[in-house]
């Protein structure tokens, strides 16, 4: 489903964030992307979303070379991916309900579908009674859960989560992980960036470890592996 071919990303003149990445993620896989702060994990995700362009190399998603994707087609491509951003990226002038509904509007969902699905999603992440609040009225963990709900809204075939449990307590984190596992079982590909050692170690999924922009480890049923 996702293929990186000799992908590099250099910021500014000389900061190499990713260096010659080759990678293959198959449809239906659940992949943890781990690595120390500044290793290039978010950069990897930004490349996948075409938020930034690679300095070198090609990225192929679902058979399409997205580095050559026409500007007009980018929105449709992005809709096929559900993303939990590290900085949440909630729309500050929309309520919780509207934030999720908006993602569905974008994808041309009917009003009926929206009215049915948004409450379901809010229930899944435990925010039923917060639907009328604005992001700045939510706790950190609540904002993160809205971001997760939004990523699931359009039943995407690929879900990318950048540190989706960084602001969540262990209970909530595990609830989210079980949810993602459930969704993965129904065939959705999941790429998740995380620093949560215990989660990675217990899930026993494929682990790709980055360090200074280089893949230093890629194991099926791997562990977090950074001993402290």
């Amino acid at each position, binding site marked *: 489903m996702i293929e990186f071919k000799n992908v590099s990303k250099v910021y500014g003149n000389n900061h190499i964030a990713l260096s010659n990445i080759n990678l293959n993620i198959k449809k239906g896989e659940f992949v943890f992307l781990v690595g120390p702060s500044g290793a290039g994990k978010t950069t990897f995700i930004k490349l996948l979303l075409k938020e930034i362009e690679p300095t070198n190399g090609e990225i192929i998603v679902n058979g399409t070379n997205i580095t050559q994707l026409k500007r007009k087609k980018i929105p449709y491509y992005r809709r096929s991916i559900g993303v939990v951003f590290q900085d949440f990226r909630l*729309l500050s002038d929309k309520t919780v309900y509207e934030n999720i509904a908006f*993602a569905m509007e974008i994808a041309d969902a009917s009003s009926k579908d929206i009215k049915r699905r948004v409450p379901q999603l809010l229930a899944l992440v435990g925010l039923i009674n917060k639907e009328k609040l604005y992001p700045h009225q939510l706790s950190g963990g609540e904002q993160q859960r809205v971001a997760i709900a939004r990523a699931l809204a359009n039943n995407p075939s690929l879900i990318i989560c950048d540190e989706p449990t960084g602001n969540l307590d262990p209970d909530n984190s595990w609830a989210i992980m079980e949810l993602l596992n459930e969704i993965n079982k129904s065939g959705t590909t999941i790429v998740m960036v995380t620093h949560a050692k215990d989660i990675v170690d217990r899930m026993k999924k494929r682990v790709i470890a980055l360090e200074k922009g280089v893949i230093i480890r890629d194991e099926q049923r791997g562990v977090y592996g950074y001993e402290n």
Partner: protein
Amino acid sequence: MDMKIKRIKYYFLESIKNLARNRVMVVASIGTVAASLFVLGIFLILALNVNNAAESIGKTLEIKVYLKDEVTTLKRIAIERDIKNIKGVTEVIYISKEQALEDLKKKLGENKAIAEGFEMDNPLPQSFVIKVEKPEFISKVSYEISKLDGIEKIYDGKGIVEKLIKFTNIVRVASYFLMGILAIISAFLISNTIKLAVYSRRREISIMKYLGATDWFIKWPFVIEGVLLGLLGSILSIMVLFFSYQYLTNNVSLNLLLFNFVSAQSLLSFILQKFLLMGALIGGFGSYLAVKRYLVL
């Protein structure tokens, strides 16, 4: 089709919601549109009134044609008909020798004794007073008249007319020119404000983009917002202009001026559509350009 209507409804709802939630922006934008158009309106009022004054002065101008003594009544009627047929002539008034004497006496007032000797053998010629559509016609008409038989002399106050026409034209060109400049500046100020308003929402715009919204999906609510803000601002400016001008014309007596104010109603009908259109266009287009900018990034 159904989809289209749903979309349009959605865009309108979105833009109205956004307006409700960005009050600083709304107040600033409407204020700017209203203030800019208000200045334009003040200038327009000045220009309209100057033009109006020039025209009404122009209308009081007339050509005076003195006939030769030998012109008979029949001949005189023929001349009158010929003059009436000249293009641009609106009225021809005949003044007989007797009428001319009467007029002279009236003018002399207390000193009318001076003219008493004239009653025996009236030396005053018969004449026509000719009015024309526009001052511009005067010289052409008087030239045509000069070609007729039986004309003793033509007074068309040529010097004054020409000066007046030149002056009116200068005022007209200058006011169009200045109004053009003011319109451009208004457009600049308004789009400037809208640009800043959109700028303060650049984060939101980029998020929408990363969620997979098409450019137009993002742009439409902004464009509609711009149009609504423009319309509201222009309505505000029209109202302020209309009521303050009405108050002015009703309460300030300019009895010494040679002309009347253009009426508030005719001002209203002159600016209504133009201002609404201008507000809406600049607002919509300003938003469009501003959003576009943050979409490329």
